[in-house]
């Protein structure tokens, strides 16, 4: 598990204080991209984008991997965050299901009441 120290949080906040870097994270949330792609999307020089990605990488928010001549960037959520996010989505899935189940159960209860009354009559 990834341990977050004070410096980890500071690095994250510093990384997130810049609008371009937030944009890059948003972009990577949709799909992985190369530094060249990102530089083009954000109308920047390759060097400028490399710096931004470097800051994000330092903060652990982005992971880069060089395949051949292309360096690809991926969102670098820590395993812990990833798991927490997944569990919350999984919880919502069941919560939505169970809200519908409440309605079905309520109807069955009503029906039972009515049927019970009919039998008694």
């Amino acid at each position, binding site marked *: 598990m990834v341990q977050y120290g004070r410096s980890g949080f500071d690095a994250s906040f510093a990384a997130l204080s810049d609008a371009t870097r937030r944009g890059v994270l948003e972009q990577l949330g*949709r799909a992985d991209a190369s530094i060249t792609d990102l530089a083009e999307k954000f109308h920047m020089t390759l060097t400028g984008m490399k710096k931004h990605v470097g800051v994000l990488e330092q903060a652990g928010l982005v992971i880069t991997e060089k395949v051949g001549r292309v360096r690809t960037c991926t969102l670098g959520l820590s395993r812990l965050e*990833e*798991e927490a996010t*997944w*569990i*919350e*989505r*999984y*919880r919502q*899935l*069941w*919560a*939505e*299901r*169970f*809200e*519908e*189940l*409440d*309605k*079905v*159960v*309520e109807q*069955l*209860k009503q029906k*039972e009441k009515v049927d019970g009354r009919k039998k008694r009559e």
Partner: protein
Amino acid sequence: MDARRESEPTPAKNRTTVERTSERELVVTRTFNAPARIVFDAWTKPELLKRWWAPKSFGVSFISCEADVRAGGTYRFVFGHPASEQPMEFFGRYIEVTPHSRLVWTNDEGGEGGAVTTVTFEERGAETLVVLHDLYPSKEALDGAIASGSTGGFSETFDQLDELLLTLGASMGRS
């Protein structure tokens, strides 16, 4: 504004909780305001199950819902979505069916990494506590499910597809 309807008592919403209780197990809990036999019926009669298993918010609809709810019986749920020609299938086998108290089934659509689901129904006064366990074959299988990002829900899958189609459409329009 905010006129309260007193005629139909709407039960307060009960909270759904989820916890990863071990390296390979997830536990979901929820209380329902009804006796266990009613809640159990809603899980085991296909025509009832169909009404809640895929709520509207999931963005999919049942194409078919077959479930032979007895030990050794199988189930197969098929769903469709307007954005996809391929239906989605979920299937498996019931291992245990104990009326009003316990259901166990396998989830086989994902191959060998699928979880075994155990649902227990525990009556507490006028309420029933439902506890659902998803037990994965290994830590790697559960970690893998988490890493894939899919929770077995549909909206997320189709949201991704919708987004992809949108992106493709936009990039085609641009060129």
